[in-house]
């Protein structure tokens, strides 16, 4: 199968809407089909990475488990927009999984070199 570089941008907080789940599921599918997948957390999407979430209290599934599967499926790095973190007073130590923090120029380059960008 042909290979393309697909970048998924997740920009919503985890439980208020189902958007976060939609982006993860689509990215996992792309990884299963052995595409080159980038996964970028931006805006309220960085809230998905906060530690110590337990969504059972709202009859939902804690999103961290789905995020951990990203690596299992060959999505090597979770990428995070530095501006979005700073705006929310978060840093790498606050996050539940290891991430690579991208500065503005790196985020721009990521978008520029991707064949497809999916931003739900």
């Amino acid at each position: 199968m042909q290979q393309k570089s697909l970048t998924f941008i997740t920009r919503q907080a985890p439980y208020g809407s189902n958007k976060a789940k939609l982006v993860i599921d689509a990215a996992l599918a792309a990884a299963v089909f052995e595409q080159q997948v980038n996964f970028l957390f931006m805006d309220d999407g960085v809230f998905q990475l906060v530690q110590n979430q337990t969504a059972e209290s709202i009859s939902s599934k804690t999103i961290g488990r789905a995020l951990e599967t990203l690596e299992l499926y060959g999505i090597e790095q979770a990428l995070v927009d530095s501006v979005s973190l700073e705006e929310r007073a978060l840093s790498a130590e606050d996050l539940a999984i290891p991430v690579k923090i991208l500065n503005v120029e790196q985020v721009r380059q990521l978008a520029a070199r991707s064949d497809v960008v999916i931003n739900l």
Partner: protein
Amino acid sequence: MKFSLLVSTSPASSQGAMTAYQFARAAVSQGHEIYRVFFYGDGVLNANALSTVPQDEINLPRAWDEFLTNHNIESVACVSSALIRGILDSDESARHKMTGVSLLESTQIAGLGQLVDASIQSERLISFA
């Protein structure tokens, strides 16, 4: 040019679905190919056969159905999005012992692999959210 469309909004609740439909018509009228329309999340409600609207309004699921059929365009409703929203073909309806079939005939239920395939096979993937 070979397009695919990703539609993830409900026709009843937001304009994105209508914009996608208008875009699809314009692309086809210019002679372009639409490889696949993928309905995802609330977008699966675009393939809702049970939807009815007042006579002076457009029934967008019916409009999609006619357009996709007339131009022989493949469309897919994501299976997990469809099941939770009660969009069922006759197989799924029987399997879940349900009282109805709610998927338009022009659309099939399938997995996210069809979105990935559309991303790869098409020259442009246009998302309407």
